[in-house]
């Protein structure tokens, strides 16, 4: 009997990390909140390990300490980077609830009215600009369905094209910056958020460009799937010339003043070009409000302001004026201003945005806390060594390993949101990726590293590339039938006349486009690495 017990003891001693993962897999499917499953398993495993004299009770102190963060650890609390998350959530929610998103879609429809498939194209463009909105897959898909599906169906768009466009455009938000997922990834992989944002920009635009080209082709070849709008549908009042000149005048004056001021002795006082940009931003919103519901008014108050806001947020990160956290705060403030200009900043809007932001923040960070507890215990029972041993045991080439990891993430994407995948799986994969870095040097167009500094630089590059591959991969996974969970939310919020088979058929071309996009990023890493290099230098 004692032999038996000691055999169990020895077995557990080595494999407790593996059992933690097994238990996690089982627990998640009971449907308990993911964070509680993570926390519960880590505390129970820690108790078992303490009982075996494997760990001391100090493990619990270590957990709370790591949740708190500080000392360069990527904790939840003392971590200036993560402050960006509630701000981005607030900004996205505010743009949605203050109907800025809705107005944007409307003006895009008007602008693209003569282009074949104009409605579907406006959804794609809106998905690209509004990628920031919430960044939580389910919420984005439901929002886009509510805004865009009925108008498309009513104008005779085929349900397959309409639903495919909506699902694909709504999930762009996890890739195109400012994306919450990229903030979390950068934090976990210990790389720069700004750099990752810039890296994701081109791949994101390539994907939305692919969608755009596909919709345009389908609408041109088969007009029955995307009939053009009737001329009578959009009746535009003539716009007032004076307002156009007012806007152009203010904008030009702003830039001219900025040009001369930055050449004068006042050059260093403030960033004059930024001021000119803000003046243009303000003029657009205010003149647009004066102009009202004409084409000019729509462009000035519906199209430019959200576009300028995103440009301001991303531009100030890329230009190095602001950290991502500061940019997020400025973006959140800007979204309040937009709502105010839009005359939708009521007490109810504010309350509902604040409540929703609080709940979404809680949702993201509770998983963060649970995952921190889990990974602390996992590391202390040498779980990471188990994984590395397993990988070595498989004896795969780095390329094969990369494909295995990507496929695993793709499968996980069927069941889990990006939160669980980024927070639980990425920390496990990160050391593997870092280890593979030298092999990928040639593929990334870099020389094999010869010093520690060069190795670190190379590892960072590989991680940027890998993070973007994961983002595109996950987006594909969320769209792939029959499990893809963007489709589930789409079906749930679409009118019941839309059938699941139509959604499946509609999404397949987009999944193929996604795979093409993934292949492009895989084959040409410079797509993700070139722009950051230009902006920041190496």
């Amino acid at each position, binding site marked *: 009997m004692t032999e038996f017990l000691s055999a169990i003891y020895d077995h557990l001693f080595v494999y407790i990390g593996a059992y933690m993962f097994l238990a996690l897999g089982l*627990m998640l*499917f009971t*449907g*308990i*909140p*993911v*964070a*509680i499953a993570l926390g*519960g*398993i*880590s*505390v*129970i495993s820690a108790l078992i390990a303490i009982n075996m004299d494997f760990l001391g009770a100090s493990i*619990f*102190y270590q*957990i*709370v300490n790591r*949740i*708190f963060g500080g000392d360069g650890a990527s904790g939840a*609390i*003392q971590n*200036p980077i993560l*402050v960006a998350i*509630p*701000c981005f959530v*607030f900004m996205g929610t505010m743009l949605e609830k203050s109907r800025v998103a809705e107005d944007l879609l409307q003006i895009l429809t008007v602008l693209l009215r003569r282009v074949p498939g104009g409605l579907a194209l406006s959804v794609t463009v809106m998905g690209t600009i509004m990628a920031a909105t919430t960044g939580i897959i*389910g919420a984005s898909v*439901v929002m886009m369905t*509510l805004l865009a599906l*009925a*108008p498309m*169906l*009513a*104008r005779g768009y085929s349900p397959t094209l309409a639903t495919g466009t909506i699902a694909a455009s709504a999930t762009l938000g996890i890739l195109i910056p400012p994306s919450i997922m990229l903030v979390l990834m950068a934090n976990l992989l210990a790389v720069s958020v700004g750099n990752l944002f810039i890296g994701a920009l081109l791949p994101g635009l390539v994907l939305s460009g692919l969608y755009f080209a596909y919709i345009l082709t389908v609408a041109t070849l088969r007009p029955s799937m995307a009939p053009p709008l009737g001329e009578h549908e959009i009746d535009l009042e003539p716009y007032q010339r004076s307002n156009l000149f007012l806007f152009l005048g203010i904008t030009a004056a702003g830039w001219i003043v900025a040009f001369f001021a930055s050449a004068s002795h006042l050059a*260093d*006082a403030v960033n004059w070009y930024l001021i000119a940009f803000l003046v243009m931003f303000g003029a657009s919103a205010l003149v647009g409000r004066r102009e009202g519901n004409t084409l000019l008014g729509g462009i000035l108050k519906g199209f430019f302001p959200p576009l300028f806001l995103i440009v301001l947020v991303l531009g100030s990160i890329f230009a190095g004026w602001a950290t991502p*956290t*500061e940019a997020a*705060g*400025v973006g*959140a*403030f800007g979204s*309040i201003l937009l709502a105010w200009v839009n005359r939708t900043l009521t007490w109810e809007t504010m309350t509902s945005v*604040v*409540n929703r932001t*609080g*709940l979404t*923040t*809680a*949702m993201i*960070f*509770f*998983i963060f806390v649970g995952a921190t507890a889990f990974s602390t215990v996992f590391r202390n029972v040498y779980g990471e060594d188990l994984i590395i041993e397993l990988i070595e045991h498989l004896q795969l080439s780095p390329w094969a390993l990369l494909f295995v990891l990507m496929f695993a993430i793709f499968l996980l994407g069927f*069941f889990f*949101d990006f939160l669980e995948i980024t927070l639980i799986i990425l920390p496990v994969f990160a050391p593997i990726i870092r280890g593979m870095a030298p092999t990928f040097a040639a593929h990334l167009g870099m020389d094999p590293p010869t010093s520690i500094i060069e190795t670190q630089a190379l590892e960072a590059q590989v991680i940027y590339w890998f993070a973007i591959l994961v983002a595109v991969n996950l987006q594909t996974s969320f769209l792939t039938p029959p499990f893809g969970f963007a489709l589930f939310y789409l079906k*749930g919020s*679409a*009118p*019941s*006349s839309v059938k699941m088979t139509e959604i499946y058929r509609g999404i397949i071309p987009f999944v193929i486009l996604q795979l093409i996009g993934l292949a492009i990023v895989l084959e040409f890493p410079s797509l993700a690495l070139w722009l950051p290099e230009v902006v920041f230098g190496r």
Partner: protein
Amino acid sequence: MDGMLSAARALDRITRVVGKTAGWLILPLIAVIMFDVVTRKIDVTRLYFAEWTATSGISVSTVMQDMQWHLHAFLLMLTFGIGYLANTHVRVDIFREMMSRRSQAKLELFLLIVFAMPFLIAMVAYSWELFTVSWLQNEGSESMTGMGARYIVKSSMFIGFVIMTCAAVATILRLIVDLYGSTRQQQEALDELQIFSSAADELEAARLASERALIEEKRKARH
């Protein structure tokens, strides 16, 4: 059973009040970031504050940056509880959806007692230790010019986990009443529980809204 229900109601109330109040911290957070960014980008204010740092030993910018994550700490920790009560925490719902409501309740009750409570109790106990250690050392900021009194922000973890425990206990009490109370009590408990796949309800509301929108849009398109 009625006592349990009213205890649950009290805990629920505390959790919701704290959670809703903490949600509003996002506004001061945005204001602090804006203030910091603007004052650092304009020469006059930057120089003014730099001089101020030299005389008083407090850097406004460092304090503002510390302030950001202090506010964020309370925002994120104090909303866990309300997030659980409102059922916004992520669940993997695939199999749960297939279960009857009663077995969902039994499973949730079991898992709350076996998994959530040990976790929460451990976190409450050790975050209390984290707080008291900091308090006894009178811990300050790492940077000379930052915000002092580090124990204030460390208390956010303790308070947050206590509030989350309140939410868990309230749900445990209601689930017990829902499973084993009289018919009337069961109904009352059920009305107060939001943990049963409410995502489905939200989706249903969204679906009805898009049905209405479709009819409306069709009418518009015909004119």
